[in-house]
């Protein structure tokens, strides 16, 4: 916490004072938070959809989808990053379309880093959401049905609100994982200071630099603080929501 409280003071002091973050380091912190946020904002809706399909639908190929979703959990992150390069690189099947149609380039950009984080966080988000969807009592949906609620209506007014604690936990866990993702990001988005250099990458870079231990230590402390805050927040918010839905 000390690191944040003295932010204002820091600008008036010499940048070499080791107890505070340098502007470059603040950039890395801000970038990390922003990339993780993007990864959750785009990943979460898709995770809810996939979790719903896995929890509720029975179709051939369900096991394949299930395995595919869990793949990033078991693959080395570097391999995930490389597969993303193949698919979303400017010559990759998706990357080419995105660039030609929308002018979007993902490799070596912050959005690319967010994609890599999102893919790595995806299995954990899906798991948390799926568990909460599976624990929604189908009897409540039946009751809503007899009261005249159609499919979308039931989803919006019963199923998703009842699964909200799990969705929130999924979002927070996904955010926390995104804050710490290293291998996939460095492979797909590279380690460009101010653009794709998130905290773990900055720490790695510092450790590769002679005399960078102090920087690495400060950034690690930030990392630890963020992670602990995330866990506490997840616990607190999840508990509140669970009480709201009466569990």
């Amino acid at each position: 916490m000390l690191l944040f409280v003295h932010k204002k003071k820091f600008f008036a002091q010499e940048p070499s004072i080791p107890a505070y973050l340098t502007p470059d380091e603040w950039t890395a912190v801000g970038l990390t938070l922003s990339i993780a946020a993007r990864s959750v904002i785009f990943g979460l809706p898709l995770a809810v959809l996939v979790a719903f399909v896995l929890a509720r639908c029975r179709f051939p190929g369900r096991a394949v989808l299930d395995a595919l979703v869990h793949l990033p959990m078991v693959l080395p992150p570097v391999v995930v990053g490389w597969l993303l390069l193949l698919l979303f690189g400017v010559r990759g099947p998706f990357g080419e379309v995105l660039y030609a149609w929308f002018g979007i380039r993902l490799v070596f950009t912050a959005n690319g880093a967010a994609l890599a984080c999102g893919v790595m966080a995806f299995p954990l988000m899906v798991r948390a959401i799926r568990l909460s969807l599976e624990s929604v009592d189908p009897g409540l949906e039946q009751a809503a049905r007899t009261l005249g609620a159609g499919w979308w209506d039931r989803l919006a007014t019963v199923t998703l609100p009842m699964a909200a604690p799990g969705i929130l936990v999924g979002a927070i866990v996904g955010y926390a994982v995104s804050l710490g993702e290293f291998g996939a990001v460095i492979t797909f988005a590279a380690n460009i200071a101010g653009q794709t250099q998130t905290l773990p990458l900055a720490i790695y870079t510092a450790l590769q630099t002679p005399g960078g231990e102090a920087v690495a230590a400060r950034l690690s402390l930030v990392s630890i603080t963020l992670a602990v805050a995330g866990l506490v927040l997840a616990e607190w918010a999840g508990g509140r929501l669970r009480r709201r839905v009466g569990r």
Partner: protein
Amino acid sequence: MIQVRLRHSFGAFALDLAFSAPTPGVTVLFGPSGAGKTSVVAALAGLLRPQYGQITVDGTPLQDSDAGLFLPPEHRRLGLVFQDARLFPHMSVESNLRYGMRRAPRGPIGFADVVDLLGIGALLQRRPHSLSGGERQRVAIGRALLSQPRLLLMDEPLASLDLARKAEILPYLLRLKTMLALPIVYITHAPDEVFAIADTLVLLEAGRVLAAGPLTELTARGDLPLAARDDAGAVLPAEIAEHHPARRLSLLHSGAMRLWLPLVDAPVGTRLRLRIPAREIILATAAPEGISLHNIVPGRVRAVTEDAARHAALVEIDAGGAVLLARITPDAVTRLALAPGVAVLALIKSMAVDVLPR
């Protein structure tokens, strides 16, 4: 009129039944567990799609397998009260009540009326998990009513409640029945609920209809499983004719039958139902004298059924329109030479008659 014809098989269990019941009024589906009661309700509500079904409520077909019609539950406009209430835990009581109301066309049942009828005004801002079982069930009934249903389905609404909570809810159900001209299909395996609220009774056993008809008729039959129960006895409609406060007696009419009962706490003209336990009726061929008894009802034997398990006989007596059921010994049947058509006197203790609200 509710018309139902269903065929459905799940593994070893098969449902194959048909019944119809007049509306408005309370139709009770009664039977042991495993008789298929809940499946019938699920099929009525559309939550179960039977392999063959013809379901019509007041002329509106809900399912017609011959015509390929199957209305999904959300379009049937039937209010269903589940045994376990199934209130939405993430909503307040008021939001629960308004859930079906918002999704229904405007109807005759008003929010304030329902809240008042069920006595749930003080609960509106509460959350379902903070309610007692009885309160939850009242809210669930209100929620179903406010969806402006053409028929209210109640699947053992009192089964999960203890006796005190049951006694708390039953009066509300009776008010519901008298105040709203809403057809109700009610499922239970508790005879006291049957006697209290049924107008039409459908007896189910192993997926089939054993008998269906007016409660007064079925409770007076000696050949149905109802008659083999300890609490067997005919239920009769009656009306208070006179009060005699000095004698602490009331005179009630049921068809041509006159019955003296301990003073009933209701005005003259009130319509009630009487339940006369079969084991409390004495049969005679000549009127006894010098006896405390008030009620000596003349009638004719309609049928005699042997109940071998109890070493008893069940005698149906037509007492001028009202039919009584008496359980006596087979020996008495022989001594009095009771057979269909024989004139007989039914001796009914005033104290043995249960007076129930209509």
